[in-house]
């Protein structure tokens, strides 16, 4: 009984904060509403007694959303939403697509005849997961490892301008005070 109530409350909160992501102007608010949505999903997993996956979702998503906020605020105009602006382009199209996808996924989840559980509930799902990773899913893990290494190298290559050659490869100091005038007109060119 309580499980069902908790499940539905969390579900509604997760979807509601997901929708709210697109209703706010501030990048900070949008990012952390998305985090809230993930945390509610983590709550669902905990209700379903998936202890490890639930805690792991909190663990991973918090760090990742904090980093995402860093990038959103670094690159998006008007990150605090202090000036009114439209966050979504092609609003109608986006709405149609997202509603259609949501309905399709929900329908699939409800309509598909899920198989009955054959084995009994594992006494310790984390342990089972560890066994899987270390025995028959070993190859998957190794591929992931190489993939992560490739990610590190590729990301660094793409993101660093200077590299190991230090200051010599760095662009030189910008002209002093180029913005002494720029401060007077505060509507940037590409706003």
């Amino acid at each position, binding site marked *: 009984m309580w499980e069902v109530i908790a499940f539905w409350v969390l579900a509604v909160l997760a979807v509601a904060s997901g929708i709210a992501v697109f209703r706010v102007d501030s990048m900070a608010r949008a990012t952390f509403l998305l985090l809230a949505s993930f945390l509610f999903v983590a709550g669902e997993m905990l209700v379903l007694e998936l202890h490890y996956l639930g805690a792991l979702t909190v663990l991973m998503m918090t760090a990742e959303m904090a980093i995402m906020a860093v990038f959103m605020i670094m690159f998006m105009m*008007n990150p605090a939403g*202090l*000036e009114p602006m439209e966050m979504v382009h092609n609003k109608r199209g986006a709405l149609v697509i997202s509603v259609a996808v949501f309905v399709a996924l929900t329908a699939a989840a409800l309509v598909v005849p899920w198989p009955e559980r054959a084995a009994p509930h594992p006494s310790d799902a984390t342990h089972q997961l560890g066994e899987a990773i270390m025995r028959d899913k070993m190859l998957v893990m190794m591929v992931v490892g190489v993939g992560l290494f490739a990610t590190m190298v590729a990301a660094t290559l793409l993101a660093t*301008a200077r590299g190991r050659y230090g200051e010599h490869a*760095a*662009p030189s*100091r*910008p*002209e*002093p*005070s*180029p*913005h002494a005038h*720029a*401060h007077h*007109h*505060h509507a*940037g060119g590409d706003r």
Partner: protein
Amino acid sequence: MDLISALRRAAFTRPNLLLVVAPGATGPRLAMERFTREHGWSLADTAADADALVEIGELDEPLTAVAEVLWRQLPRPAVRLSLGDEVGVGEALARLPERLRSWRPTDEPSEEWPEPPMADRAPDRDGLRLDVLRVPLGPVLPYWPAGLRLVVDMQGDVVQFAEVELLGVTGRTRPYWTGETRSAARRLDAAARLLGVAGWTAMSTRCQILRDRLLAGGTGTFVATEVDRLARRVRRSPLLGAMLRGLAPLPGLGDAHERLSNWLAEVARASTADEAGPPVAELLNVLPDVVFGAELSVVRLIVASLDLDIAEITEPSHGGISHG
């Protein structure tokens, strides 16, 4: 209700103070630091945590404007007082808790403030155009030289441009650190500030205590041995070394770590050269170049490591020097 009034009484036995110090008003500043240390009061890091705004020395027009801004930023209850010289410091401060307790809300209207625009962009080291914040460092910051304002342009927390403004230098400004004893005390004062910025507060306080002993005519040998012990600990701290080594190396002066070690060594040897290092105007000239491209915490350390005494610039005509 009695509980509430008891709470309010207890609340202000140890107020936090925010200082606006005129260059050269070092005497009353030291008296005030000593009072707060001995009575367990604190100096506030920011207006939000201050109960009292203390104006020390004679404030000129720009510094008065600074005090005005800060006064309106202090949460209530708040008290404002000004201290001219070291004689009345203890008395004026001792009355502070009572003044805070007797503060009553007035129906002052909400303050009107101008709304700033969004940040604009400027070229960046990495070849992008990014938002710039123009942030004044000083004149009112913890461990900051009196009368100095370093206006910096920051992209993120990295300084891309800096310019120096001097506040509070009038025709009557006189440097405080003259004579042998005071020159030695000056080294300890500078060390206290640099250690404070570096976050080694216990050691910073120790420097202040020794500084005050020296100025009070403490016996030279005792202070010298104490300073010698302190100097050794400072020199040997690997953490502090990692913090300060390699920062702003200047010809003849070494980097920030060497400068700190030298100050303490001079006091320990009791042989302070009266003319130490280049004049402050020269240091202020190179400052914008030295802090270019540095992270904010490094900028703070560099400024503290230069021991800038603005009062040494006695002509008010310097008031507007700025550099590109």
